[in-house]
């Protein structure tokens, strides 16, 4: 293992790990759900909520006065 890992590399590793976790989670949801109708029913509102959350957070961060 390298002694020094750059911040960018750590971010990439975290993204990779999160993506794998998301794939596993999605596979689990798709196999356990009664059908794609159930996936759509819960998935679409969840997607909207998450996107809104991220969007609002970005907006707040942009409007916040920068720290000197």
């Amino acid at each position, binding site marked *: 293992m390298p002694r020094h890992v750059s911040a960018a590399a750590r971010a990439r590793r975290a993204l990779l790990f999160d993506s794998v*976790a998301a794939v596993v989670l*999605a596979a689990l*949801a798709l196999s356990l759900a009664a059908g*794609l109708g*159930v996936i759509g029913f819960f*998935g679409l509102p969840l997607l909207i909520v998450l996107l809104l959350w991220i969007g609002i957070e970005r907006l707040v961060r942009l409007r916040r006065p920068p720290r000197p």
Partner: protein
Amino acid sequence: MTRDPRPRVEPATVRPRRPLPPAVPPPWRRARRIALIATLICLVPAGISFLRTMTEPHNVRFGVASVEWMRSHGGNGIVSQIEDWYYTLTAPSKGGPPLRSLPRVGIAERSSSSSNGGAQLPPRIKPLIHPPLPGEGVWKPAAANAASPPPVLVTTFRSDPEYPQFVAGVAWIDSARTQLAYVPGIDEPPSIEHRGPAEVPPSKRRRLAATFNGGFPLETSNAGLVYRGQTIATMVNGIATLVEYRDGRIDIVRWEHGPNPSKHVWFAKQNLPPIIYGGHLNPDLSDGPEWGATVNNAVRVWRSGLGVDRHGNLIYAVANYQTVGSLAEILRRAGAVRALELDINEDWVSFNTYRGPGARDPSSLLPEIYRPADRYLTPDERDFFAVYVKGGW
């Protein structure tokens, strides 16, 4: 003192820098990221399936088609629960101003409540609310030039004294003079050979007297279907079954013959337990698991049902704001001794008659029926029944 020859540099205003985001986001943000990616992955197959369904030809509204997609993709329980809440919240209140007239159905004012030409015509339906309105419960021919006695009669009556504004539409079909045909729809039943045109074949419209909705989809009813002598879905004991035998006889029975029909059965479609049997209402018309994954039996919605009278003639009933119990009461009052429930909800109930040969001038049994009277003259998603006059008009 020598002067510094270098140009003087004014100190730049120090612009505060935004802090860089941390290399690895905090755990809650990573959890959100995982949820977002997982949701997107899940929605890809769901979206493809939804779009494929929506781009197929259909003749219902986008909203209804979406709900049907959800129903047929594992969401039936969710849809039924939401419908339950909606219909419970929008339930009609009792009473209200009395009606002054009934919707005009049929083509003539002459009463057909007698024996005519040797045929057993049904007696007038006794009105429940007094004084009766003009024509209430009086059978009228559905078509203008139908031979005498008319093969299809129609009437309306107020079906519930507690709700004096509810009007039920009822049709009587002479089994001796008509032939019932089951027509598969574009989507329902899902697996069938020889699906056909999913509409009344133009070659048979000359003899067409009526069409009506065919009952729950197989996925919702979890019951059986026999088509042209072949088992399409396994028959279930105890379920109300509309049967056509190879000799042309039609009956409604409680199925007790196991998963496979005898060779005498040409057609059979099952839908929920019987609502009337032996002239008596099913004592379990209140809700229970035997009624399948559908809205609560006590919820008031558009409901339709089919029965047979003691002479073997068919009786169809449809009305808005009905529970299973009140629908059964309508059918019993109209003379049914055995009956089953057919489709529910405004998008699926239909009873159409044709005032002239060649499916000319179609009309709905009740003017409030949402689907147009020419439904089934173009391809339809759902299966349905066509009533043909034997030997023509």
